[in-house]
């Protein structure tokens, strides 16, 4: 993915939470957790083979993050900023279009 879809949210969280403590410790920005880039937890990363995909959306449906989106052509897009590499998508894929490979950083 070229750019994070949560760019604006992250900027807002960084700006507003750095300025002041919220009264009563209330959290008032919904979805502010996007600032945590949980992708760094990953050991194995999903590798997507586009030609094998039958677009059943099972990977999208079962992603617990959610770190899988769908593009205009209905193919899954993986967000490696947040993917923790659990491997559910690869295990559930009926055509084995997703393979878990050890990530080299």
């Amino acid at each position, binding site marked *: 993915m070229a750019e994070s*879809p*949560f760019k604006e949210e992250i900027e807002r*969280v960084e700006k507003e*939470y750095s300025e002041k403590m*919220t009264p009563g*410790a209330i*959290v008032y*920005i*919904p*979805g*502010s*957790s*996007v*600032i*945590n*880039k*949980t992708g760094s*937890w990953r050991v194995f990363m999903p590798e997507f083979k586009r030609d094998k995909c039958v677009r059943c*959306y099972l990977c*999208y*449906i*079962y*992603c*617990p*993050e*959610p*770190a899988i*989106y*769908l*593009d*205009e052509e*209905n193919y899954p*897009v993986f*967000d490696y*900023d*947040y993917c*923790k*590499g*659990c*491997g*559910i998508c*690869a*295990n*559930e894929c009926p055509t084995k279009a997703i393979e*878990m490979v050890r990530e080299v950083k």
Partner: protein
Amino acid sequence: MEIPENVKKRLSLPAEEYFYAGHTACQGCGAALGLRYVLKAYKNRAIFTIPACCSTIIAGAWPYLTFGAPLFQTAFETTGAVIGGIEAGLKAKGYKVKGEDGIMVVGWAGDGGTADIGLQALSGFLERDHDGLYIMYDNEAYMNTGIQRSSSTPKGAWTTNTPGGKKHFLEQKPKKKVIDIVIAHKPAYAATASIAFPEDFIRKLKKAQKIKGASFIQLFAPCPTGWRSPTDKSIELARLAVQTAYFPLFEYEGGKYKINMPSTKKEPKPLEEYLKLQGRFKYMTKEDIAALQEWVLREWEELKKKAEMFK
């Protein structure tokens, strides 16, 4: 990220996402997936209350929030009471609670916070018949504090305080059937659901929204960390639990039972298929497994009889 229009039409779940990435659940967490489905079903038209459990952390440690909906974090034993309080507050302010376009008040508690600690508040919530929904996500132990047994842990399971071996023992008591305790209150709606069957789960959530009165859903949510199972097998385990009739999916509505899955006409799969994927059952002997299998089939026969009697 926006889902394109042409995809929305083919998708079996609501496309809107109100559960945000960046939460701190473990890899392959069933509870996080369950929360994602609940937020997909109710969007931001729900108020959540979560007691002390893994979901407190999943929903976000201060100052972060994973939800796109309001959340009230509460003490361990008060989930049922807080649902009642929020519902009464909303009604006093003149909001529409439940019904087609009403606000949902959702309590989301783990099996420890429901079957052990929060049982009294749950009973009160059902008995007073508040217009709310209580979801118990069942991962069969106190996972947040480090895998201690709860009364929802099945017989023969390893946990940190039932470690097995020569001096100690494995879990001795069978799983507490919270859903039967709930149905004994004669609620408006009670159901079991599984994260492996999201369409069924979301249908049940929508049904609970339509029906006036107290509703309860028991959601089966595997925990790879506590169950000592591979992280990629969470969905497979949840599916096998249903197919082996270990955790059958059924609904209770207006005094009537309806079994959704597995099929009542076929024999369920052997339980061993479900057990062998998990490290927490590896200390069980052949006799233990046979005893657990017998217990599962007995419960399954009982449920089938009930479904036949009250249909």
